[in-house]
């Protein structure tokens, strides 16, 4: 089946562009980058076509990587239905975003990424690692991809400081556990043995997995890096921080469903973290003024939804939402990028407004994402969010109601962003211009997917065979409630931002305390700064630097030297330089020796 071609193609693109891109023209760089990803996408399609009924997973073994004692890890790729969904999302949306990047990066000469070719090389490298993550048939390969995408995210943001250390720690701890408990890293064998393992072991593994997933998928309490990561170029935000990389945690949890079904405690924790994050991030998204920040918090919130689905035992709904979210959130980000592009870099929504007439294509495509994320039937968000909420309702009514409330908030903040950006009168200085075709064509494709994707790709049906059977709730009332929540959100936003434009400020004045709380993101950054970062810096300075480094390490080194001097200063008294005193010592020594021999019986054998 030649599965290796799927990740190798983007890697080849990375190598070609990375090594020779400097000498290439922009057109050639784009052709290599996009060509490699599109070819990879086509190869995915061909693979799927060749797999027939898709019910038998295809595993390809390439070579044995680690063989030590009972541990035997091979470099294996695995394709089953779950992988197929991820592959299509990653390569499909990846291709679109690559195309879009041509237009977006055309004028980009930022200091953070020293060149057009390097940007595309990193994007291709990201695709490679993401595909390894998805295709890997063992936790170790998954981990390789996991770290690789983190690296690429770091490279593309050009950040100095990565807050994802917790992810690594969680994963390492988890991998160590895995080896200890099962002596194997292959999904197949692990899941085979998981059934017989004691529950506390599985719960521990599940929780560790979850910590890793929380870090990658930006869940409480490790979500703070994601909004900061939006500092990167918008296509990066769309590809890595909305559509693919951040869903790796969701994918991993779904992939490990066997473990989680045997560890209900861990499942509950996932559901609770998911719903808390969803609500938390949505409230922050309500009041942000930076258009990318709104969507960033929206991403965090939607990822929370996916975790609700998985935590409720309905793994396929989590993946379903992962896919639809990839469609409409990529579209929202690319649309936002198009708006920012049109306004020559303006990101503050207070300086936008009335753009509906000036950049109509961007407006109409983004409107598709708008109705999709708000859960208006029959578009993407309606299907997947409804499936998740139905699953949550069976799991816990409290989670369901919080989820519904969050759906309302979601609709509200997206509508707010849309109204502030596209309606009313223009408040900025720049002269908006519509983006080139190379940018709006991907937008249009994504718009179609946002409108029809949920209906075209019924993921829960598709994945039914993979996951344990889950009772679908067929309560139409639940559907009405969630649809109503979404419409109410849009309606409220319409009321506040369109009918009575002054109302938003008035509300902000009236509810000053919560507004400030939301606006400052619950002061979480400050909280972390005070509770984690500063103690860490202070602790490093006082304990590690002054104490351990200067005190202990230097102390040992200097102390050895100083003690040698001390001993020497005593011993040098012996070295008087007078032959006679030496002779005296020799005499004393001989006498002592003879005495000792006399006392202890001489040299008798």
């Amino acid at each position, binding site marked *: 089946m030649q599965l290796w071609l799927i990740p190798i193609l983007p890697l080849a693109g990375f190598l070609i562009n990375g090594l020779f891109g400097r000498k290439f023209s922009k057109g050639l760089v784009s052709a290599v980058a996009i060509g490699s990803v599109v070819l990879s996408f086509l190869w995915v399609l061909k693979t799927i076509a060749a797999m027939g009924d898709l019910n038998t997973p295809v595993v390809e073994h390439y070579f044995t990587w680690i063989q030590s004692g009972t541990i035997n890890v091979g470099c294996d790729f695995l394709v089953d239905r779950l992988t197929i969904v991820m592959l299509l999302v990653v390569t499909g949306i990846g291709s679109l975003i690559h195309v879009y990047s041509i237009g977006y990066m055309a004028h980009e000469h930022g200091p953070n990424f020293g060149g057009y070719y390097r940007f595309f090389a990193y994007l291709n490298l990201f695709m490679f690692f993401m595909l390894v993550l998805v295709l890997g048939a063992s936790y170790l390969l998954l981990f390789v991809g996991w770290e690789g995408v983190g690296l690429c995210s770091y490279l593309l943001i050009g950040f100095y400081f990565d807050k994802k250390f917790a992810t690594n720690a969680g994963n390492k701890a988890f991998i160590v556990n895995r080896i200890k408990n099962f002596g194997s890293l292959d999904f197949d064998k692990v899941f085979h043995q998981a059934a017989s393992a004691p529950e506390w072991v599985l719960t521990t593994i599940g929780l560790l997995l979850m910590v890793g997933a929380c870090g990658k998928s930006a869940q409480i309490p490790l979500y703070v890096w994601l909004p900061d990561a939006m500092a990167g170029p918008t296509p990066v935000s769309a590809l890595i921080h909305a559509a693919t990389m951040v869903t790796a945690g969701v994918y991993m949890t779904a992939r490990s469903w066997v473990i989680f079904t045997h560890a209900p405690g861990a499942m509950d924790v996932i559901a609770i973290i998911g719903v808390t994050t969803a609500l938390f991030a949505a409230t922050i998204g309500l009041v942000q003024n930076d258009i990318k920040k709104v969507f960033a918090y929206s991403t965090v919130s939607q990822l929370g939804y996916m975790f609700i689905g998985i935590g409720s035992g309905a793994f396929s709904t989590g993946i379903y939402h992962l896919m639809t979210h990839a469609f409409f959130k990529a579209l929202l980000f690319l649309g936002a990028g198009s708006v920012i592009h049109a306004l020559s870099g303006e990101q503050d929504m207070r300086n936008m407004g009335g753009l509906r007439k000036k950049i109509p294509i961007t407006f109409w495509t983004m409107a598709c994402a708008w109705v999709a994320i708000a859960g208006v039937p029959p578009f993407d968000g309606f299907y997947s969010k409804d499936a998740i909420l139905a699953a949550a309702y069976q799991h816990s009514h409290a989670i369901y109601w919080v989820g519904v409330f969050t759906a309302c908030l979601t609709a509200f903040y997206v509508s707010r962003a849309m109204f502030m950006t596209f309606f009313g009168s223009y408040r900025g200085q720049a002269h908006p211009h519509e983006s080139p075709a190379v940018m709006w064509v991907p937008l249009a494709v994504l718009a179609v997917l946002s409108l029809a994707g949920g209906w075209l790709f019924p993921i829960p049906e598709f994945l039914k065979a993979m996951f344990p059977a889950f009772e679908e709730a067929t309560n139409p009332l639940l559907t009405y409630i969630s649809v109503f929540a979404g419409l109410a959100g849009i309606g409220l936003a319409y009321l506040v931002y369109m009918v009575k434009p002054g109302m938003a400020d008035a509300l902000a004045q009236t509810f000053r305390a919560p507004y400030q709380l939301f606006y400052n993101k619950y002061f979480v950054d400050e909280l972390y700064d005070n509770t984690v970062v500063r103690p860490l810096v202070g602790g490093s300075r006082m304990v590690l630097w002054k104490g351990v480094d200067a005190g202990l390490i230097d102390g040992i080194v200097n102390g050895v030297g100083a003690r040698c001097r001390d001993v020497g200063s005593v011993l040098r008294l012996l070295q008087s*330089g*007078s032959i*006679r005193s030496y*002779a*005296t010592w020799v*005499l004393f020594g001989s006498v002592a020796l003879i005495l000792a021999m006399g006392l202890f019986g001489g040299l008798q054998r």
Partner: protein
Amino acid sequence: MMTAVPISWFLTLSAILFALGVAGFLFRRNIITVFMSIELMLNAVNLSFVTFSYQHKDVSGHLFTFFVMVVAAAEAAVGLAIILTVFKNRSTLNVDDVNSMKN
């Protein structure tokens, strides 16, 4: 056999001579006396060698003695020459006055 004189007497004499040599080496200041004390110690050891050689009927003790005598002769030649030169230059034979190599 000559007999009648026990081995221990020879050894005791050797020890007394050696102790006298050590005492002279440590306490006397005159270079010539120090030099003679060293010779005395060497000869005390020679006496021990010969005694043991006799007792064990082993010739290597004699061999050692000859070696020591050769070295002592050479030492006497070189040492006396040095002492003469020192006396010519410093007009003294007190070891404490010719310690300029120290420090």
